[in-house]
């Protein structure tokens, strides 16, 4: 080949051609058809399209294809770049030749289209309809699946897109699945909007995807269908309102509520109930609010109000509630085999009422019958009736429950013959003319022919427990039923009532019928009365007692008792005692007989009760005490073998002034003790029982017993008195207490005593907690006195006496006693002073006797010449001591405060002195100053010797005060009183106490006294024995004394009785004025010489 250059050139050309050919196949020229694509919409035909990149004008294109299963080539001319050819089984060879307008081929290209190169895209679905349901906010979309063009059984997927508002916001996109059936099927799809459809426009479009697995090519979604619209109210020219209207939603739902208004209006706010919610703008004429998790609304719903401009308001009501609860306690029964009544409890309330309330229906599955139930929403229990179907016993009920939010059901399988609840028996009647049986009739409404009834009769007679009597009987159709009741008690009022149920399969009793009353007839008393007898104390008459029969024994109303007395079958006495007496007396003398008592009622007589009157003698009958036991009295006795017919315990009830009523109780002969009980027993009352033994020959008193049902404290304490009192003891005595006051067996006395005065405010002795309280317990009941020893003399004691029983202490009786004084001590206390006085007297007597001469000479000289009286021998310097004048010795000289005043006035001349108690009176000077009292000269003096002349100034003298001791000088000097002054003096001296010295008192002075003072003077118990006003206590040189007009110029000496000296001025000096300040004092007296 290397040697042949031409061959080399041919080879190179061939390679070039081949390369060029290959290149033309891959890239092609601008006129070459390119991008051949084949798409099928129905798997039978496919649409093939291609491109030509050149922009040159083309003529028709030759299109030829050859499928491998069809060897012939199909060619045709087309002006488009799109042809529809059959879908090949495996592949198709396509030859496309582009031509110029003149028909000259530009380019030819062949394509091989295999099946996998073909795409399958269904045609866009066509929406047949879009229907809005406004109340439910539901859109219903309908379209055809075009299934007829596809093989059977292909899976089709439909993608639906929802858009809303003017801006077509996508709300949701869902995929719907269907299967193609090789038929054109109209598919439907519902969508519930969360927004009312009235609020704004909603749009819907749809596309599909058919999943054909055999197709190996590319499969894809179809195009979207044209949009279908559901216009909102905001698109209507005058559409407005708040939506949704009267919608019911479940609690917890999210709800959108919109307000559509007319053009030009504005929404101010929207409220849900009381709350304002934010607005969500939907369009220019529509806004909404979104309520999340809505809570249950009120009965009348929750108001949603849209407030518009210009005070426009619109609104709607939303009902938020619950789906119905599952019925509880579903139960069905029949009361008459005509109607089945089913009851149930509704469970949780739905919160929806009226037409939105829960609806019930009863569906019976076996028969297929359905009834709707009219129920009362106000009742807690729901009731629904279903008719009984002939020949059907078993019912399979399905109770359907629904409301706008949801529904539920409950079922019950029931055999109605086992659920019989008869109605209340009616028309109950009781009849009978027997004393022990009655006939009852009643009526029950209902058809019970196929079952037996069990009826229960309640029998009650008021004093015994209710009895139930069951009667089974065949049922009937609205029948009357009867029953006979026997073994009733005569003459007894009974109350009857009836209820019934099914006998074989008990379910429930009916209600009780009304009560019917019936009294059985009388019958003779069942037994004779219980009797006893007692002879009168005289023994001539016999009193017979009987106890009334009980109602159950009397068998009727007892009208009388026949009492007869037989002696050897011979009647001695006969009496008929009418009710209500329960005793009678018959005269027997000393005879004995057998007493017979028969009770009679309208129906007959009782068997006789007999008792002999024979009383057997008793020896040595003892009296024992009984023991209280419970509310009775326990008594016991020895066994008496010869008492063959038992024992009788007899006692007597005494109530107040009425004679005691005899009661008794019989016991069999083997009894040796008993507890006697009686409703008449009272605590604290003593009862006396007599035990009789019964022999065939008569009754014998065996013993007496006394006792209390309960012992109480004595009502009071015994009366007690103090018999004797000494300085250290008290003897008290007390009386016996009557038995009725004891209220129990007296066990002793308790005497308490302690010191104490009779004082009502003091606590009682026993309550005072007095540590000195002493208690003496006297248990010897025979002792009626007690001497309390070791007491203190002349001391008050409180004594409390109490009696006590087993029931406790009585209230105390109290006494207060004062012990006597100790006489020996008293005597000693008196005798010793007396003896001392006597002794002193004796000594004094002896002394006086021995010194009698001296005394006589000294005090009572024979010649009463003062000059001879040594006692009046005043001598100078007497205070200097004169040993001879012992009585006038001033050693020691006790100074006393004395004011000596010389009185000289025109007033009555009183030559007397008077002493006053400074405390008795104090005259305040008129000028109010107290200088005078301050200027008083208090002098010490030696009273016996006063020789100084005392001037008596004529001036008034103020009254001063001075402490002096006055002495009795009355006996020594009686002042002369002018007659005209007497009356005035009397005025002063009319007080109880009369001074022993009458002093002249000027009328002026008396007038100057206040009436109160006068009254005081009159009423004062004690007065000094001088008119204190008459005392002038001023010193002579005091100013007051100058002005003083006090004519009283006397004073008393506080000195010894032996030293008396009247310091009176001489009478002749009275008229001569003397300086008032010329006074004297005891100091002067002692220091200066007397003014001679």
């Amino acid at each position, binding site marked *: 080949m290397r040697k042949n250059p031409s061959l080399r050139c041919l080879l190179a050309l061939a390679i070039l051609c081949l390369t060029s050919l290959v290149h033309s196949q891959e890239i092609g020229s601008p006129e070459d058809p390119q991008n051949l694509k084949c798409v099928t919409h129905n798997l039978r035909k496919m649409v093939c399209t291609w491109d030509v990149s050149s922009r040159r004008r083309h003529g028709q294109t030759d299109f030829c294809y050859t499928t491998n299963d069809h060897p012939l080539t199909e060619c045709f001319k087309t002006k488009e770049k799109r042809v529809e050819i059959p879908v090949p089984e495996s592949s198709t060879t396509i030859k496309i030749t582009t031509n110029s307008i003149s028909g000259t081929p530009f380019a030819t290209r062949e394509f091989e289209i295999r099946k996998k190169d073909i795409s399958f895209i269904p045609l866009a679905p066509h929406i047949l309809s879009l229907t809005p349901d406004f109340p439910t906010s539901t859109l219903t979309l309908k379209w055809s699946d075009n299934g007829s063009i596809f093989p059977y059984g292909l899976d089709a997927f439909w993608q639906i897109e929802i858009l809303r508002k003017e801006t077509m916001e996508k709300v949701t996109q869902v995929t719907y699945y269907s299967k193609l059936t090789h038929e054109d099927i109209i598919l439907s799809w519902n969508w519930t909007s969360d927004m009312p459809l009235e609020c704004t426009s909603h749009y819907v479009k749809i596309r599909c995807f058919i999943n054909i697995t055999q197709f190996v090519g590319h499969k894809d979604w179809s195009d979207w269908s044209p949009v279908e619209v559901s216009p909102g109210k905001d698109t209507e020219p005058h559409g407005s309102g*708040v939506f949704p*209207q*009267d919608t019911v939603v479940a609690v917890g739902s999210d709800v959108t509520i919109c307000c559509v208004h007319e053009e030009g209006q504005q929404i101010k706010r929207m*409220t849900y*109930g*009381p709350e304002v919610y934010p607005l969500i703008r939907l369009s220019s004429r529509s806004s909404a609010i979104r309520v999340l998790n809505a809570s249950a*609304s*009120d*009965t*009348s*719903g*929750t*108001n*949603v*109000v849209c*407030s518009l401009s210009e*005070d426009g*308001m*619109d*609104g*709607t*009501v939303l009902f938020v509630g619950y789906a119905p609860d599952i019925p509880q306690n579903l139960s069905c029964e029949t009361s008459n085999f005509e109607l089945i009544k089913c009851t149930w409890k509704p469970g949780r309330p739905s919160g929806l*009422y*009226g*037409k939105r309330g829960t609806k019930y229906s009863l569906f019976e599955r076996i028969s297929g019958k359905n009834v709707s139930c009219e129920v009362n*929403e*106000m009742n807690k229990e729901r009731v629904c009736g279903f008719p009984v179907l002939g020949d059907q016993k078993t019912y399979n009920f399905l109770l359907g429950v629904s409301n706008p939010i949801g529904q539920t059901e409950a079922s019950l399988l029931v055999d109605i013959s086992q659920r019989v609840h008869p109605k209340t028996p009616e028309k109950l009647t009781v009849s009978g003319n027997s004393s022990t049986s009655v006939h009852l009739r009643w009526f029950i409404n209902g058809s019970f022919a196929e079952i037996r009834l069990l009826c229960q009769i309640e029998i009650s007679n008021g004093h015994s427990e209710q009895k139930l009597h069951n009667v089974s009987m065949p049922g009937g159709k609205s029948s009357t039923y009867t029953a006979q009741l026997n073994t009733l008690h005569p003459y007894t009022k009974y109350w009857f009532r009836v209820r019934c149920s099914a006998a074989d399969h008990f379910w429930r009793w009916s209600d009780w019928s009304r009560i019917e009353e019936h009294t059985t007839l009388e019958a003779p008393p069942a037994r004779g009365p219980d009797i006893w007898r007692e002879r009168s104390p005289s023994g001539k008459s016999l009193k017979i007692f009987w106890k009334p029969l009980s109602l159950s024994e009397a068998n009727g109303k007892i009208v009388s008792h026949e009492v007869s007395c037989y002696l050897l079958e011979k009647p001695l006495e006969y009496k008929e005692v009418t009710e209500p007496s329960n005793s009678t007396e018959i005269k027997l003398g000393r005879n004995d007989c057998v007493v017979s008592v028969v009770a009679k009622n309208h129906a007959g007589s009782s068997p006789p009760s007999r008792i002999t009157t024979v009383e057997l003698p008793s020896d040595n009958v003892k009296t024992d005490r009984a023991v209280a036991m419970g509310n009775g009295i326990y008594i016991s006795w020895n066994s008496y073998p010869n008492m063959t017919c038992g024992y009788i315990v007899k006692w007597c009830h005494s109530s107040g002034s009425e004679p005691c009523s005899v009661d008794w109780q019989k016991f069999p002969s083997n009894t040796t003790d008993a507890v006697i009980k009686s409703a008449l027993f009272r605590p604290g009352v003593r009862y006396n029982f007599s035990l009789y033994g019964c022999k065939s020959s008569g009754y014998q008193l065996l013993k007496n017993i006394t006792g209390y049902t309960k012992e109480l404290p004595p009502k009071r304490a015994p009366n007690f008195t103090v018999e004797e009192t000494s300085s250290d003891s008290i003897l008290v005595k007390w009386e016996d207490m009557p038995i009725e006051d004891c209220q129990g067996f007296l066990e002793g006395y308790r005497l308490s005593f302690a010191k104490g005065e009779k004082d009502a405010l003091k606590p009682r002795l026993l309550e005072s907690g007095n540590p000195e309280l002493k208690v003496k317990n006297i248990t010897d009941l025979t002792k009626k006195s007690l001497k309390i020893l070791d007491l203190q003399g002349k001391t008050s004691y409180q004594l409390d006496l109490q009696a006590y029983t087993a029931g406790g202490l009585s209230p105390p009786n109290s006494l207060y006693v004062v012990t006597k004084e100790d006489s020996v001590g008293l005597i000693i206390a008196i005798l010793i002073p007396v003896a001392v006085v006597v002794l002193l007297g004796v000594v004094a007597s002896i002394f006086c006797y021995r010194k009698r001469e001296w005394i006589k000479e000294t005090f009572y000289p024979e010649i009463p010449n003062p000059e001879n009286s040594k006692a009046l021998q005043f001598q100078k310097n007497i205070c200097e001591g004169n040993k001879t004048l012992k009585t006038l010795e001033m050693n020691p000289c006790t100074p006393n405060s004395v004011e000596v005043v010389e009185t000289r006035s025109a007033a009555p001349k009183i030559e007397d002195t008077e002493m006053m108690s400074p405390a008795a009176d104090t005259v305040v000077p008129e000028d109010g100053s107290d200088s005078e009292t301050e200027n008083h000269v208090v002098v010490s003096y030696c009273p016996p010797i006063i020789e100084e002349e005392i001037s008596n100034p004529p001036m008034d003298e103020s009254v001063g005060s001075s402490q002096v001791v006055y002495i009795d000088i009355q006996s020594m000097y009686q002042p002369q009183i002018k007659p005209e002054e007497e009356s005035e003096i009397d005025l002063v001296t009319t007080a109880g106490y009369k001074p022993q010295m009458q002093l002249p008192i000027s009328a002026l002075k008396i007038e100057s006294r206040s009436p109160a003072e006068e009254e005081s003077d009159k009423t004062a118990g004690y007065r000094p024995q001088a008119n204190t006003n008459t005392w002038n206590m001023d010193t002579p040189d005091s100013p007051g004394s100058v002005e003083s007009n006090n004519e009283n110029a006397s004073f008393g000496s506080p000195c010894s009785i032996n030293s008396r000296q009247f310091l009176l001025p001489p009478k002749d000096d009275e008229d001569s004025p003397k300086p008032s300040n010329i006074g004297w004092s005891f100091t002067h007296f002692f220091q200066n010489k007397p003014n001679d």
Partner: protein
Amino acid sequence: MWECHGAPRGDGRRGSPGRGAGVVPFVALLLLQRRPVAGRALLVNGPGCPGNSLCRANVHEQTRKQVALLNATAQDLFSLYLKCQGEPFSSESDKLCNPGGIFFPAFHVNRTSEKKEVMVAMYKLFAFLNASLGNITRDQEELNPTAKELLDRLHNTTKTTRGLISNLTCLLCKNYNVFQVDVSYGESSKGKSTFKKKQQGCQVLRKYVQVIAQAARILLPHLSPA
């Protein structure tokens, strides 16, 4: 304050409906009309008044008491009605219950008006009220079945109104020989939304409270024993 739901209170303010001697006419026949309806009410079942036997002796006194009773209970009824409708009826009753948009019979009489004119106006008023109260009662029985007190008050007011109409009938016949009166009834609430029913009842009752007070003032002097 009242409780909307539950047992009615025994406050003793329920009026005993007056039982006039006359025939309660016509009103129920036209209750269910959707729009205000004008009608000629036949007061009696005949061409004319039957005579004095139509009225009882105490008809004036009874009528006066009935008006007074309605006047005394109107405000309470209105308040309880508002409470039972839920918010915002109580808080915004002025706007929600504004009676401007509803029909209400004109009541243009005063104390100086002729007695006959007053009686006729009263008759028209209470005929309208009786029908409206019937509508309201029916709506509330459906909407508020548990509001026993409200329902009782509505029933009692309706009964009193009915009795009052009877007495007015007899008075018109007896005193003025009027036995036909043209009356208008309100728009029926049937078929309306719940909110509209509530609102309409509210509007009527509010107007009723206003007018009954005016009626009481005007009617009572005419009915006073002269």
